[in-house]
């Protein structure tokens, strides 16, 4: 039973935090975007574009990084 619970917990964690680099980078991107909008008075649409294009760049970088590490 404990093994099953541990496996479930592990699965739940890996659902969201499977790749540490991507997880940390995405959380940092969201935090920076939020701070810029709330405290630096950044226009919300510019903030939105930062979030969107930042995510796209992180995705490509994460795939490229994984491919490089595989060889």
């Amino acid at each position: 039973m404990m093994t099953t619970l541990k496996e479930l917990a592990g699965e739940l964690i890996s659902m969201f935090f499977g790749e540490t680099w991507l997880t940390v980078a995405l959380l940092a991107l969201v935090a920076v975007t939020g701070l810029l909008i709330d405290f630096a008075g950044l226009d919300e649409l510019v903030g939105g574009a930062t979030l969107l294009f930042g995510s796209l760049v992180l995705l490509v970088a994460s795939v490229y990084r994984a491919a490089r590490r595989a060889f």
Partner: protein
Amino acid sequence: MTFATAAPAVTAAFLASLVEVVEAFTIVLAVATLRGWRPAALGTTAGLTVLTAIVLLLGPLLDRVPITSLQLAIGILLLLFGMGWLRKASLRAAGILPLHDEDAIFAAEAAQLGDQARRQQRNLDWVAGITALKAVLLEGLEVVFIVIAVGAGRGLLVPAGLGAVAACALVLAIGAAVHRPLSRVPENTLKFGVGVMLSAFGVFWTGEGLGIAWPGQDLALLLFAALFLGAGLIGSVFARKFAVEFA
């Protein structure tokens, strides 16, 4: 509720559930093939009962969370989850990661159960039932999260839930007819598509949670999805080039 609002949520829930239910079905089928349908059905029923309890517990709690906080929390989780799927699908499409092989998973699960049968004669039905329960619970948790994530922010829990139920019904109907792992389902293509949709939802909800009013409202989701599709494909092309150069 408009079609433009509901369609992406229902489609995402349906396709994501299709992938997860196919994976769970493979393991339940392995259990049923080796130990009969009784432990497989009992394990599946127990798994579905636990999942239902989780939904019933979480549902009322979600209503108490302020909508902006809910959108931000779910948006961030969707971003992490969706981009994780998209990243893996891009790497699989590039040949860096092996494709998900339902036949191989079925054989491995059957071999493991067979091994346990040789080592330990007692309680085999119990072990088989627990195996089925774990498969249903592990894959089902992802389905529950996706349904909540794409449905909760806009009051679309019921349509998204129906999308998931339709996927379950489809897999069970095909599975009952063919009695073998559904290895011909194009899992990576589906995962790529679902990763694109979940990532698009993730940016959308996170932005709304941060107070961003997206131009075009829900239609912005389509633009986001197109951009994530492009980024996933570009990543895959880069990775494939890398693989070809260094292989």
